[in-house]
């Protein structure tokens, strides 16, 4: 739930960053991009605590305990780790790309006339957000 808010907000700051660069407001664009980066860090930190809590209950991939659970539950947790893990990897990839674009904006290689790289980074990031929106009801709202 908190993570959904974090990720939705990061999508907002991302779109604001693209918008600012298109209007040639470089400082504002960089600020929003750093904000997006910070929010994705926050997302991963929250994820870390969430996984730690699962881990302390003996719930982690490959653990015998998961196989001993009744059928549906074992499937649930395996899917949960697979999907959130894959999503987490995409978040990390997004952060790396954001950092690269950030330096490119700083150096002037990406600017108001050549903002495509930032725009595509944004599209990728919204997709990561989009997928999370589907993961939320799938794993966090089902009982």
């Amino acid at each position, binding site marked *: 739930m908190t993570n959904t*808010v974090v990720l939705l907000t990061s999508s907002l700051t991302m779109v604001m960053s693209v918008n600012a660069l298109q209007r040639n407001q470089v400082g504002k664009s960089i600020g929003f991009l750093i904000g997006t980066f910070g929010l994705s860090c926050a997302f991963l930190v929250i994820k870390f605590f969430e996984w730690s809590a699962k881990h302390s209950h003996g719930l982690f991939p490959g653990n015998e305990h998961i196989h001993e659970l009744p059928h549906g539950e074992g499937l649930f947790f395996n899917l949960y780790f697979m999907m959130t893990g894959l999503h987490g990897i995409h978040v990390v990839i997004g952060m790396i790309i954001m950092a690269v674009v950030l330096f490119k904006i700083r150096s002037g290689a990406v600017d108001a006339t050549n903002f495509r790289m930032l725009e595509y980074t944004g599209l990728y990031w919204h997709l990561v957000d989009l997928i999370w929106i589907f993961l939320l*009801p799938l794993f966090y709202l089902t009982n």
Partner: protein
Amino acid sequence: MSKTTAAAAHGSGDHGDHHIVPDGTFIQVWIGLLILTALTVAASVYYPGNVGVAVAMIVTPIKAALILMYFMHLKYEKKVFVIMFLSAMSIFGVFLGLTFIDYLFR
């Protein structure tokens, strides 16, 4: 005639150049997304089970549409991109649906 020139003008130009959406629109979309998220979570807390799942299954595609249309500015793009995205999403939907069915009937 006017229709084709309009389409050509829209098609030849790089997207984004034509439509710089005001920041306010994005903030409104973001608030909408937060409200819809709260709605989904509330439904699953107060009506766990079928009602909660039903609400999630109705509200989640609406949230997805908001992100696609505004954040990913699909609303301002050519129709072909909408069709491309919808076909990809429907394949994804099939997988998600099958997963749900597998999960529900175990």
